[in-house]
């Protein structure tokens, strides 16, 4: 299996910078997820690794080999496209066989490899069908089998689950995770879905506007975000943000007063707190005061949204929680789970 190193990688389209000074090291057998909103440069990065786009500057290494000027066919990578990119005029068998056929692998060996790959994703009975006769999930499996058939050194997946319905997506996610565990192929996976990123990744690289925001394990990304963007992008429902002032370890903002935070003085800070780190408490207690805006039952819990100092704050509460709209509410904050950010630089204050 291969390792991948990106060094000071840039991609520009005229004046538009798609990827800016990106440096990354992806270890052998790692499952790295490139996560970010549309247009953040994650797909462009993957396409440069695949050899489908040239880097404007910087280096791309697969193992110790610089591959900037190497054609895709010589990079020994396999890619699953968002659209699956199955060849419509070929049967499932011919689709899976394609990478071996262009490499002139002997017939018998080809047949064995195709059937083994089809077996891995359980599509042996579909082998004679055309792509148009398959469902979305089945097409996805064919695309996976085609990528698996020659055991590449590096797997590239560009939002492979985004065209599937919600239920199938959860199922295929589990299959992908299992497959990676079985085969141990180094994988780069592009997605804008943070749940996919957190569930699948060994490490997550969060990108925004072409810039790498944070590279860490899913746990770290969630529990220790490096800046306001990562904090806001990860988590569903998202992190709550309150603007205020930090004076000697005490955060004060409209309807908010939270002691025992980090030392220091900052006139302009943003406090971030996740919905599960807030609790509804009795009148007179707690750190935040506001009014009930809405209560939504999600099944295993409920989400209370309250207006605090003009901002909406979401709290995960017990599924049996009830409250009237506009009723006053007090909220307590888990002070060990508060994140403070500089409002100007948007970087974390520690």
């Amino acid at each position, binding site marked *: 299996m291969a390792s991948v190193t990106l060094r000071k990688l840039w991609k520009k389209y005229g004046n538009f910078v798609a990827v800016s000074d990106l440096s990354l090291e992806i270890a052998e057998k790692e499952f790295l997820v490139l996560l970010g909103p549309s247009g953040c440069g994650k797909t462009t990065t993957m396409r440069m690794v*695949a*050899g*489908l786009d040239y880097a404007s500057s910087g280096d791309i290494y697969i193992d110790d080999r610089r591959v900037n000027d190497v*054609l*895709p*066919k010589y990079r020994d*990578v*396999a*890619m699953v*496209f*968002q*659209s699956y*990119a199955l*060849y*419509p*005029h070929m049967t499932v068998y011919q689709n899976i066989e*394609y*990478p071996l056929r*262009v*490499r002139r692998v002997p017939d018998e060996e080809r047949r064995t490899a195709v059937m083994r790959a089809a077996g891995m994703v359980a599509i042996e009975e579909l082998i004679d069908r055309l792509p148009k006769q398959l469902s979305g999930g089945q097409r996805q499996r064919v695309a996976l089998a*085609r990528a698996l058939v*020659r055991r590449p050194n590096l797997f*590239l997946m560009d939002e492979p689950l985004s065209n599937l319905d919600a239920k199938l997506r959860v199922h295929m996610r589990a299959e992908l995770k299992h497959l990676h565990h079985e085969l141990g192929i180094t994988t780069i996976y592009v997605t804008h879905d943070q749940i996919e990123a957190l569930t699948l990744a060994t490490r997550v690289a969060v990108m925004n506007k072409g810039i790498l925001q944070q590279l860490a394990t899913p746990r770290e990304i969630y529990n220790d975000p490096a800046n306001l963007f990562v904090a806001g992008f990860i988590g569903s429902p998202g992190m709550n943000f309150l603007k205020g002032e930090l004076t000697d370890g005490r955060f004060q903002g409209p309807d908010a007063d939270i002691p025992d935070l980090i030392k220091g003085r900052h006139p302009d800070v943003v406090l971030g707190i996740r919905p599960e780190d807030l609790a509804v408490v009795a009148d007179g207690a707690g750190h935040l005061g506001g009014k009930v805006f809405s209560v939504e039952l999600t099944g295993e819990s409920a989400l209370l949204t309250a207006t605090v100092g003009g901002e909406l704050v979401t709290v995960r509460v017990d599924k049996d929680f009830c409250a009237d709209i506009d009723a006053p509410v007090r909220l307590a904050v888990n002070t060990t789970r508060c994140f403070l950010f500089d409002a100007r630089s948007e970087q974390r204050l520690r």
Partner: protein
Amino acid sequence: MAGTTTESQESGLKPQHQRWLAAIALVFAVAYTLFPVLWLLNNSFKTRLDMFSSPPIYINGNPTLFNYIQAFVERPFLQYMLNSAIVAICTTLLSLTAGTLAGYALARYDYGRAKKHISMWILSTRMMPPIVSIIPLYIMFSYFSLLDTKTALVVAYSGFNLPFVVWMMKSYFAEIPRDLEESAQVDGDTNLGALFRVILPLAAPGLAATSIFCLILSWNEFLLALIVTNTDRANTLPIGIAGRITQYKVEWGEISASGFAACVPIVLFAFVVQRHLVRGLSFGAVKG
């Protein structure tokens, strides 16, 4: 069904009557279109006397192969037909090969602003009436000693066809998702391999539609062939047929026989590619 009911209510006719009306209209249209061809066929089996008899003989009770023997045995119409076939096939192959590659390059590769200019420039050569280019072409062929050769016709017709082929194929390729050839490249294929193994099979309807246009244009072309060729070794069918209108008489029998025979290959080819043709012409017209 709902549509039919609404239409019949609008026209005040029963669906049954509407079908009859449509059928009658179709019969007239078909008769109007086919009558000249059938009359040509009918005449080709008549003697000269029967052709000019009054009243005209609609059903020929005494068919003769005389005209066909005259045209294809006594006179070199078989040679003309062969010349036409060689010229049409070579032209079609040449313009499809060059035009497909050019269309692919224009659809897929980025040359910045030059790309738009190149496309327009290619198209602009089609805006000029072909007759304008006949004198320069004559001088050029004369310079290269290509007068009275099939090569000259192939070169000229390919030039006439190319803008059409380039634009047709460019629009077909633009409709095929780029992911497919990128996937083929990552799977281990070259650019050209991806074009031949993945893209061209998907562009087959476009190729069929374009090829029939090329074939018809070069099969029917008259003016340039008349100027450039003057002996049997390069004369094509339209020239051969026109040659039977002489100073003293018009050989209607031979003209009918060779004229009908000239239609047959194109009609046969159209039948073969008909399925692709209809799909090809509507392909890319609408998205989604």
